């Protein structure tokens, strides 16, 4: 538990010395509230990404997600969480210096020329769960886990990024917004408008990502929020008071159509390459009732990670194919990140 205190990073550095510390080489992407530059940390020659947040645009000061990102990334240091190297401000801007990560998991999932071995999937899931575990033991919910936000370092390490929606669990009576997490990865309690959810929402997202890694296509692609409910329950059964006590007390609960829960054989057919242990883990991560869903600790201790084949070493994992112009490709992947 002590890791978060192991190193306190400089909160901000005076502007004059900034030019000496980092170089801003070229712009690689622009979003509504930030511009991303590629740069180098002068002292170590390490590649970095500088996220410059536009401040003038907002009347109420800084954008909320920028504050969140700084607030939580400063507290987390873990091999599977993106590193916030520095924060500084120039004239009117706030700049976040982040680790440079050239690829994300979504790119790999979509590249059909890459074959995923079951050991590769295990390795990515393991690294994701380790990162999530670190967030959760520091009482931080990520709330936007999806393949697009799981970035891959050149050495194969997977790092959780984009803490723009993250928050710490507040007072017990405080309401949380249920309008979080990208729709396809949104847990059923969020779809029902729950305001007092737990880390289980992140575990659900990881479970859906696990399924997506095996299927190579989104598992529950809802067209809109209502359709998402339908798609989710068609795949996993409609929750009832029996399997999820008190579900009907959630604000936006409606039973819609009642689908039966899938039998194990049905799931076996759906994930034909999955072993029985993999299915066990998937089932326990995608329990409809959040109190029955496993937490990150028990997921990491699951037998799935112990059975053969062993998780691939990160540096042996499949990587994005180099194309003729690698520089152009870098642009593409960085732009994909939410700015």
């Amino acid at each position, binding site marked *: *538990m*002590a*890791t*978060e*205190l*192991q*190193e*306190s990073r400089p909160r901000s550095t005076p502007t004059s010395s900034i030019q000496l510390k980092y170089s801003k080489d070229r712009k690689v992407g622009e979003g509504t509230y930030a511009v991303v530059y590629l740069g180098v940390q002068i002292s170590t020659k390490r590649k970095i990404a500088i996220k410059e947040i536009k401040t003038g645009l907002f009347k109420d000061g800084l954008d909320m997600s920028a504050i969140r990102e700084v607030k939580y990334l400063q*507290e987390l240091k*873990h*091999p599977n969480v993106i590193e916030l190297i520095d924060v500084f401000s120039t004239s009117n801007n706030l700049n976040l210096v982040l680790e440079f990560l050239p690829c994300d998991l979504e790119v790999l999932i979509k590249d059909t020329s890459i074959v995923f071995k079951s050991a590769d999937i295990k390795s990515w899931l*393991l690294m994701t769960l*380790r990162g999530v*575990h*670190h967030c959760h*033991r*520091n*009482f931080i919910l990520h709330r936007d886990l999806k393949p697009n936000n799981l970035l891959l370092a050149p050495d194969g390490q997977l790092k959780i990024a984009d803490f723009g929606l993250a928050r*710490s*669990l507040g007072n*017990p*009576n405080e309401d949380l917004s249920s309008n979080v997490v990208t729709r396809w990865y949104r847990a059923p*309690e969020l779809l*029902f408008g*729950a*305001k*007092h*959810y*737990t880390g*289980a929402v992140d575990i659900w997202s990881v479970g859906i990502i696990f399924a997506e890694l095996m299927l190579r296509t989104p598992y529950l692609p809802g067209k809109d929020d209502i359709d998402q409910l339908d798609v989710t329950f068609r795949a996993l059964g409609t929750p009832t008071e029996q399997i*999820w*006590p*008190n*579900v*009907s*007390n*959630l*604000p936006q*609960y409606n039973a819609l159509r009642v689908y039966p829960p899938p039998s194990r054989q049905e799931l076996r057919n759906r994930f034909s390459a999955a072993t029985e242990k993999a299915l066990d883990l998937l089932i326990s991560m995608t329990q409809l*009732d*959040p*109190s029955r*869903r496993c937490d990150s*600790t028990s997921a*990491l*201790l699951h037998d799935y*990670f*112990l059975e053969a084949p*062993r*998780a691939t*070493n990160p540096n042996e994992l499949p990587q994005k194919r180099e194309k003729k112009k690698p520089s152009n490709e870098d642009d593409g992947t960085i732009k994909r990140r939410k700015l």
Partner: protein
Amino acid sequence: MVILEDDRSQDMCPICKTDKYLSPNMNFLVNPECYHRICESCVDRIFSLGPAPCPYQNCGKILRKNKFKQQIFDDLAIEREIDIRKKVGAIYNKTEEDFEDLKEYNKYLETIEEIIFKLNNGEDREKTEAELYKYEQEHKLEILEKNIRESQKNADAHKYKEAMERLKQEKLKVEKQHELEDLEYQKQQQQELLDVLASSNSTASAQEIIKKQRANASKRATLRKEQLQQINSQLENQFNPIYQQKLLEQQLAASKVPFTPFQGDRDLHKQYSLLPIPTEIDKLMDIEHHISDSYNDPYLNKLAKSKEYLGAGWRLTTVYERALDEAFIGLGCIIDQEKRPQKVDAV
């Protein structure tokens, strides 16, 4: 056993009298029960509805359709012996590696031959058959195991054969490519030689030029040979099962490092222990009566009973755990041991 003498009857089904001459597509089948030849359409007609007696006069053996097969040998005596061999071989399926020495293996083969002879020549046939059946029952597991082992071996051999085949093809491909390249190179060289000879005017230098050209060519040839060898050895490594075995061993060695789910980064020894707090829903609904010897916070108790909170997965324990974790979070750190000064703040 009926052996038909003349050729005409050989081509005619004795049941339906269909002639091979008139319907050239007809096939004859025999059943190992009595080895009477019957044409395919008769088999279909008579035995489709289940077991029936052999249509030959004075035979009367009950035959089943699935046992009918095409006759391979003209001589039915041989056909019959082979069937018996197959049948006995499936039961007595040990191979030489199962015996300690050759003598015992030979003894085993001798018993097999004896059984086959007895079955084939009708000498104590029923008794031998009964013995065979008894042996099968007694050694059922052994036979099955042996079967599995054999089939695995065959599969391995098959894989090896396939890999070798692929290797051969790859080698051929490379050789062909080289040949083509060489041909082109030769042509080019010749052209160059002609050009040089045409442009130079002294006759003495002509021979020198040709010599140079030849030296060049031979140099290239040796280089080529080396290249080819290298490629071949590379390919062999790629396909050689022994090489792949090595790879596998390497992987195994790597897996001897124990797996740590948390990479050693996990707090197993909490600084506190939590007093018992109910987690079951029906106990939570009546929480005041279940925490008499535990921490009592009326405000949180009220939240713990809220159905909306319960439905969203919210539990009282997590609140207490968090409060205690945060209270004790700095206690494991010894600042002197850390390199940089710590900034201790509550989350």
